[in-house]
């Protein structure tokens, strides 16, 4: 734990409560005035949040506050799981509207990868799980593919544990290993952004620790958005934090500032554990 928090502090360039605009890293994904509906249910209300490049942005808030919905707005996964969804507002990836009609959802999701709440490896071998994305529309030669799989597994800090059993079923791995495999699987499509939906909620503390360390390593190359129920986790790993409540972003800012001197009373109540 202590290692993790030190790393945050060392790497953090945004620790100052009122950092001026030119000290901020560039914005990779920008959302402005996003409203999202499941049928009649207004799940997100006028949300505007930036995701800064090579930073970890955490979404916290009580159950049903819209934080997962927001995450799934970013790679349009909401449309897969429910019919009758509607979005207003703009979501821009490097200036391109990801809800524009010309946008292909598959291509979008290869650029914005996702890691789910429960590890969900396919019932295939470890190798085939990681090779899944890269072989969807291309036929890379064996060597390229092997290199890609190895590099992804190394990035996910799983290589050393599985390099001798790549042909074995992914379902034989432990929960924490499975989740790192799912991260490797997402990395293999060479995304720019990784969305993580409570990636540690189904894991033991040890595995959680490893994933958190991994995230800090990954942000050197990737932009990460994480939804978490665990406020300590948000405090430990993230650079920016957004506090969601009833579909609204109550407060957004550098993590340290938000946790030490929140501006809103609701934020203060929540991080002190008074509700949620």
């Amino acid at each position, binding site marked *: 734990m202590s290692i993790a928090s030190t790393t945050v502090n060392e790497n953090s360039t945004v620790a100052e409560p009122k950092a001026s605009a030119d000290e901020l890293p560039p914005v990779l994904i920008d959302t402005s005035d996003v409203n999202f509906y499941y049928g009649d249910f207004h799940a997100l209300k006028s949300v505007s949040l930036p995701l800064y490049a090579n930073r970890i942005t955490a979404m916290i808030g009580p159950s049903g506050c819209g934080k997962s919905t927001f995450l799934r707005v970013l790679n349009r996964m909401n449309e897969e799981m429910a019919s009758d969804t509607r979005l207003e507002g703009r979501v821009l990836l490097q200036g391109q509207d*990801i809800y524009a009609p010309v946008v292909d959802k598959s291509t979008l999701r290869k650029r914005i*990868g996702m890691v789910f709440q429960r590890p969900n490896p396919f019932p295939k071998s470890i190798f085939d799980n990681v090779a899944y*994305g890269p072989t969807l529309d291309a036929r890379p030669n064996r060597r390229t593919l092997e290199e890609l799989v190895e590099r992804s597994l190394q990035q996910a800090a799983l290589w050393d544990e599985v390099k001798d059993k790549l042909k074995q079923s992914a379902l034989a791995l432990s929960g924490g290993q499975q989740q790192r495999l799912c991260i490797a699987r997402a990395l293999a499509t060479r995304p720019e952004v990784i969305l993580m939906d409570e990636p540690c909620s189904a894991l033991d503390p040890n595995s959680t620790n490893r994933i958190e360390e991994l995230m800090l390593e990954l942000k050197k190359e990737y932009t990460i958005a994480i939804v978490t129920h665990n406020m300590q986790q948000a405090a430990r790993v993230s650079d920016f934090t957004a506090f969601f409540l009833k579909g609204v972003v109550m407060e957004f800012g550098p993590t340290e500032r938000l946790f030490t001197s929140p501006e809103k009373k609701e934020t203060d109540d929540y991080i002190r554990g008074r509700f949620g």
Partner: protein
Amino acid sequence: MSTAVSNADRSNASLSLTDSRTRLSRFREKIINGVITASGMTSIVFVALIFLFIFKEAFPLLSTYPAARFFFGREWAPTTEGVGGLPDYGLVPLLLSSVLVTLGAVALAVPLGVATAVYIAEVAPPRFRPTLKALIELLAAVPSVVLGFFGMMVLGPYLQARFGFATGDTLLTGSITLALMAVPTIATISEDALAAVPRDIREASLGLGATHWQTVRNVIFPAAASGVVAAVMLGVGRAIGETMVVLMVTGNGVGINLLQLMGVMPGTNNPLTAFQNVFGAYAEVCRTLTATVASEMGEVVPGQSHYHALFMLGVVLFVITFLINFTADFALKRTRDVRSGSGGASAFLSFLAVLGGVLGIGVTIALVGMAGDAAGGLGIGLLVATLALLVFLIRPTITYRRPIDYAMYACLGLGLLAALLPTLFLFGNILIGGFRQLTPGFLTQAPSDGGTAGGIGPAILGTLGLMFGTILLALPLGICAAIYLSEFAKKGPLVGAIRMAIVNLAGVPSIVHGLFGLIVFKTFLGGWLDYFARNSTPVWQNRTLLWGAATLAILVLPIVITTTEEALLSVPASFREGSVGLGATRWQTIRRVVLPAAIPGILTGAILAIGRSAGETAPILFTAAVTFTTDVRLPSPDAPVLALPYHLYYVVTQATQASDGLKYGIALVLLGLVFTVNITAILLRTRLRRARRW
């Protein structure tokens, strides 16, 4: 406000969000989606086509024949000229026979089926449940022609001797044999309904101090009542649409009591006599709708009024089973919606359970009697002892019991006994009667002397050909239709209509499938093929393997669709989510993740469908099967075939001078084949359920 990030590290990452796949692969995916969506509609199309074509062939009757005389006519005499120079095509005796046979079957099968279901769902220890359910499923797999054979060889003669009937081929024989067939249907679906009752209300009742039986009676029965009603309706649908059994064991004539009941013969002026007549009818021959179509269709010339009249019977059958299935489906939906039922359900289902016990005693006594003068009853005592142990020694896991509970368990156990024993008896009887016949020569040679001697090689090959052809046609279509339902379709009226169509397609009587195959495949498609191939002599307008397989494929399509859909739905949503989250399209997700995970389940469905196609007779009567061939080779698609079920029917009813050993031999081979296929499916499914890791 947003600044682009330089991505020197990601040289190969596309900066565009538009579809980067080739035009070809996008086009291919569109085609695949189209094929799957179209396959999803096939059930509706087939039900509509069956109705339209049968109706189209039936309708011309009404232009030359008064409708009232058909629907209210009390005589069926198609070959003699009656009033006005027209033959008599009276529906009443046929409908009456069908209804009485079905009523008799239901009266026997409902108590036994319900008692069996309650025993398995509530009394049997959980570890025996899969075995008992598998056994019931195996009973459901016995081909109807084999049941008919048993009715002719054993049950009929026994009833004749025991009760002094004029013949063994009676309405009662038909009812009992049909009951053997309806029991598994009723038991399986009722058991599902009972097992689906939520655990919490069961626990609530026990928590309030109710005994186990009080809980079953007062809480579980009302909650499961609609499901049991649906089970009974489906059992009725099977019984009324069944062809081979009634064709073989009910004599195909109209008895004196039926004639009196209809007022054709004098003697029915007061209600009491009518009542006596109904009972008397069970001791006499009868002539059902299905048997009439099956026995007469082979002899009529298309275009004759007789031909149209038989299709009109097909329409009547289709409409009856459609209504029955519609009601059953409605009742099943109610089960899912409503938790509470009436108090009447408690009393009635308890009554059925007791009745099941009484029938169980009767059936056991009858079987012991039958074993005395029929081959193969030697093991009966042993079986009774084993099953009695199963019933009385194995205690339920529930702790709070009173004497009345034990009495009810005994009734339920006896009901189970009566449901299982007759078919086990049948199996023993056929095994002992036929195993001496199983020589290499019998299995490989062609039949000789009109089927009275020789082997059954061509029949085995023909049946294998039909099985292969059927699954080749039904599997791709059924899998695509199931993919549509589980992965593509959104809830709505269209999906509702498709499910309704599948239920009804599964309930269409097999003889109606046979009529459909005759008119659509053999006559219509065959005509076109011969025209385009410029065949001087008809090739495709004959009975051929292909037409038989096509007809059977439509018959087994609902099995393939429902089992495949179940397999697809059991693949966790998180697999799909994971795949889509990595940028896979819907079809890529299905092909690379969902289908591979569902393969064992799909295979089980395919095997069940193969087993069904091996045992069916009525659908191939007019489309594929012939009585004689000497060709001991795998038949080609355009060749007529000898098939085991039809060959058994033919030898038993036409080649009567054949030895019993020969007849039993054919029955044994057919039963063995069907059982092997079905046991494979059951074992595969059990292994699959145990091995599933997600």
